[in-house]
């Protein structure tokens, strides 16, 4: 390690490292580049050239058509994702607070069972969830999907917050109690402001999970209520007419952009949050 610091410049080992890194980058980037290029091509262009050639004519037709097709589903996804992310994060924070600072009899067991939820495969909850939604009168509604995502996500968000709060000195809560603060004042004024990195981790995690979800979407929503992932699948899998790859690619880009955006905006917190508690602050 010291040799790397002492000897700057291109040693053979450095060259090798960079080569491997660049190669890895390319492997991840090429599909994206192909998608982007294809989405701006005309169908003729796609049929004539190879995947990596630049478009002859730069056409936004694919994007326009794709947007027109998936727009409604895009907003469905927003309507599912935003409330589900917010609710699961908020409830997870509250759960984590109680499980770390206000331990009650059996709270360890409770936490253990909750953790179990992280390991439950989606498929295992499909039937019980659909049964429950039916009983609640929420079958095939956006609200129903929100409920499913919140319940499923709670295991993760609770875990994130609980693990952060156990690293917070208990004396902080004690001090606040002596200062006269109650349960919610301590939570809102002392702990939540400290939790920004954890909140960001939760938001990114939940947003990615829920936005990209396909299985719940396909099972619990139908027709016009479907999220964009399901709509995209339907679009790409149509068997009638000519394949419009530019539209497919543009639609896929549209479906992927929001998660990309969330990462760009909140990504720096993600790393910070994952290491939070490692250093005494």
């Amino acid at each position, binding site marked *: 390690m010291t040799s790397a610091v002492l000897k700057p410049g291109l040693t053979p080992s450095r060259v090798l490292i960079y080569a491997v890194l660049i190669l890895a980058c390319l492997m991840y980037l090429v599909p994206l580049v192909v998608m982007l290029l294809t989405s701006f091509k005309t169908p003729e262009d796609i049929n004539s050239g190879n995947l990596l050639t630049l478009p002859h004519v730069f056409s936004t037709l694919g994007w326009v058509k794709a947007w027109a097709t998936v727009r409604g589903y895009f907003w469905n996804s927003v309507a599912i994702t935003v409330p589900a992310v917010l609710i699961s994060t908020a409830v997870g924070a509250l759960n984590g607070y109680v499980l770390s600072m206000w331990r009650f009899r059996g709270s360890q067991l409770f936490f253990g069972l909750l953790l179990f939820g992280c390991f439950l495969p989606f498929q295992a909850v499909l039937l019980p969830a659909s049964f429950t939604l039916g009983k609640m009168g929420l079958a095939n509604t956006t609200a129903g999907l929100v409920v499913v995502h919140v319940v499923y996500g709670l295991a993760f968000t609770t875990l994130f917050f609980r693990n952060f709060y156990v690293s917070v*000195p208990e*004396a*902080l809560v*004690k*001090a*606040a*109690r*002596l*200062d*006269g*603060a*109650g349960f919610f*004042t301590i939570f809102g*004024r*002392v702990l939540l*402001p*400290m939790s920004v990195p954890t909140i960001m981790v939760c938001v990114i995690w939940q947003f990615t999970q829920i936005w990209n979800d396909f299985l719940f979407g396909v099972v619990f929503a139908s027709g016009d209520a479907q999220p964009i992932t399901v709509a995209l699948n339907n679009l790409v899998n149509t068997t009638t007419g000519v394949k419009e790859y530019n539209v497919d690619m543009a639609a896929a880009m549209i479906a992927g952009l929001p998660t990309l955006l969330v990462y760009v905006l909140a990504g720096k917190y993600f790393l910070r949050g994952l290491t939070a508690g490692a250093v005494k*602050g």
Partner: protein
Amino acid sequence: MATLELRNVNKTYGSGLPDTLKDIQLKIAEGEFLILVGPSGCGKSTLMNCIAGLENISGGAILVDDADISQMSPKDRDIAMVFQSYALYPTMTVRQNIEFGLKIRKVPKAQIDQEVERVAKLLQIEHLLARKPGQLSGGQQQRVAMGRALARRPKIYLFDEPLSNLDAKLRVEMRTEMKLMHQRLKTTTVYVTHDQIEAMTLGDKVAVMKDGIIQQFGTPKEIYSEPANLFVASFIGSPPMNFIPVKPAGGRGRWHVPLATDLGQLSLPLAAGDADLDQRELILGLRPEQLALAAEGDSAVLQARVEVTEPTGPDTLIFVTINGTKVCCRLAPDLAPAVGEMLKLSFDAGKALLFDAKTGERLARESKTPAEGSAGNVAQFRGR
């Protein structure tokens, strides 16, 4: 202002775990300053947490102004505490930290500002008010933690080692400030410290703890001159008391103990009265200042060779070996002999203490005057 009484307070952190506090009995009057001392892990912070209501006690009662508060929630007890770990709110500025308790208690804004100003000035943290705790040094954080407690005017203050992280000069300053403030406000206070001088100078009462048991509870003077057992005697005082193993000889009313060095010996008469001490294993306790250089014509004199000298400034500590034990004497620097020199020691036998080597308990001293027996009230507080 309030009285504070602990009646048989017990605390265990969980069934199966050993008791952290055992039958704690304490009573301090309105406005008194109680110092809590004891080795690390003996339960001082636990006791503070129990008084504050942050930990439930497993038995006994805590009374403030003769009313049992042990079931009350912390916020209703009207107690302010400085935590050993400071526990500052990391996302708030120093000012917000200090204000927090006042705001929650809905103190008017003007009064809050006034209190913050007063406390900041007292603790010399005015220039830090806009900073976050993360941007402060340990000593500065500690003063903010003090400020948070002092901004309130509760019935009782609890201070858990509030000055431990300050430099020597600031510490002395703060100690004086604490004393002044206590004289002015007269708020009942419990104060944990490892500092001997703080313990002796600040306290109206001192409680010495070990393993969750109060070893002795009394005034600083009582604790210093009439320690209940070997532990208290060794814990209080710096440098610590000398303990010389002895076997008394003689008979009733004329007990004496042989003391020997390489250079000579001496039979030190004891004021032990009628007790039957024959051949009992005892420990003679002598504070370093109770050994002095013998003057011309002194009769009970012991010769010894100086092995080590430690000049501390105001005093010089001299170490010699008596009865095979290293013994420290505190002498004025200009009188102190050099290493290897011979010196003649005389003993303040009237102040010497005797302890039972097995139990560690102090043997009652022959009471010359009835008044001296008043130290006996100490014993009733001793842990079983």
